[in-house]
């Protein structure tokens, strides 16, 4: 059965090559043993959950929330990705993943875990005229800026 085995090998090889390349394109690969990332503090007093808890479980919270919001239309804000971005966007870049020191990118490159969020999700909080912050949506509607601000602090996407 070498024929099949070699076939299998080729397939595996192709898969491996694919997987390797996909991880390789992740920006800012951490070098082993490098210093722990310095994270900028978020805007608020306290994260929505205990910091230690968030370190371990943020991905589960986000995934759970994403499915609820996306598929059921549940739009609580406590564990929304937009909430994370609003709070943790860097003061320098205004983003959570634009530079390697930004909140999400810093840790994820250190841990060498590829992030799939930012292909689609905005890494920056919504730009909105400061005077309109918090205005109920329909009122801000002028046609040039149709994006009514979500209730401040964010409903989810």
């Amino acid at each position: 059965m070498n024929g099949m085995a070699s076939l299998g090998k080729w397939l595996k090889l192709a898969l491996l090559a694919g997987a390797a390349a996909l991880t390789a394109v992740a920006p800012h690969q951490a070098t082993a043993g490098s210093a722990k990332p310095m994270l900028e503090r978020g805007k608020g007093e306290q994260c929505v959950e205990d910091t230690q808890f968030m370190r371990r479980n943020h991905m589960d919270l986000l995934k759970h929330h994403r499915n609820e919001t996306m598929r059921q239309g549940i739009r609580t804000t406590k564990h929304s990705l937009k909430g994370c971005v609003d709070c943790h966007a860097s003061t320098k870049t205004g983003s959570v993943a634009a530079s390697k020191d930004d909140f999400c990118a810093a840790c994820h490159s250190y841990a060498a875990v590829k992030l799939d969020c930012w292909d689609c999700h905005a890494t920056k909080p919504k730009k909105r005229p400061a005077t309109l912050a918090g205005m109920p949506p329909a009122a801000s509607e002028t046609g040039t800026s149709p994006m009514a601000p979500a209730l401040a602090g964010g409903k989810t996407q």
Partner: protein
Amino acid sequence: MSDLHNQTEIPDSSERRDFLKLGALAATVLAPGVMLYGIANSRPPEQGASSKLRWGMLIDTTKCGNGCNTCVTACNTENGLNGKTGPQDSQWIRKVNIKNLSNGFEHDLPMMCQHCENPPCVDVCPTGASMKRADGIVLVDRHICIGCRYCMMACPYKARSFVHEPITDQNPEVPRGKGCVESCTFCVQRVDRDETPACVEACNANGQNAMIFGDLNNPESEISKALSGQASVEVRADLRLNTGVRYQGI
């Protein structure tokens, strides 16, 4: 995880003050009808979309302006589309000009996802990424879309687009990205906070009033009343998809 969605977010205090201040301002600026409409359907954020509702749209093509592109522009701005119209660019809503072959009469109408009750795109999607929400809005769950484009093959309305290149600076409320299929969402992010889709709002603001958005299941809604009072058609009614978007004047 059960407590995840049982808590209402309290915006931080300064923003909350802004909210209250501007709320008053808003009430004065706002057209009263729009405001009332919004309040009538509100649901708390922890409550999901309800199957008691079915969102739909009625388009009176006799009021649709030939060459008017207001709805398209509003959609592009709201959803972060670049507005280009090359063969590889996304178009969630488009103006179609139709010319009667027998008498030459021409008029325009907007065409977009028809939010079918029995959507072929949902049937054919191998992973279940193409989905219909409880309230009838047909969406693509980009988290599990593998980009096979079978839904685009299946859609009778050519309503879907494939994102052909990387996208940056998305609207935080409308995630979009390379390699997934997308289409009109009825501006679900707006609908969930009791606003009408951007196209409808823009059409009304422009004075055309060609589009009505609302709950097809509620006999008291504006759209239901309009539908029960006048003839309307579904596009490709032969397919029996029971579309959520209906047309008058074709």
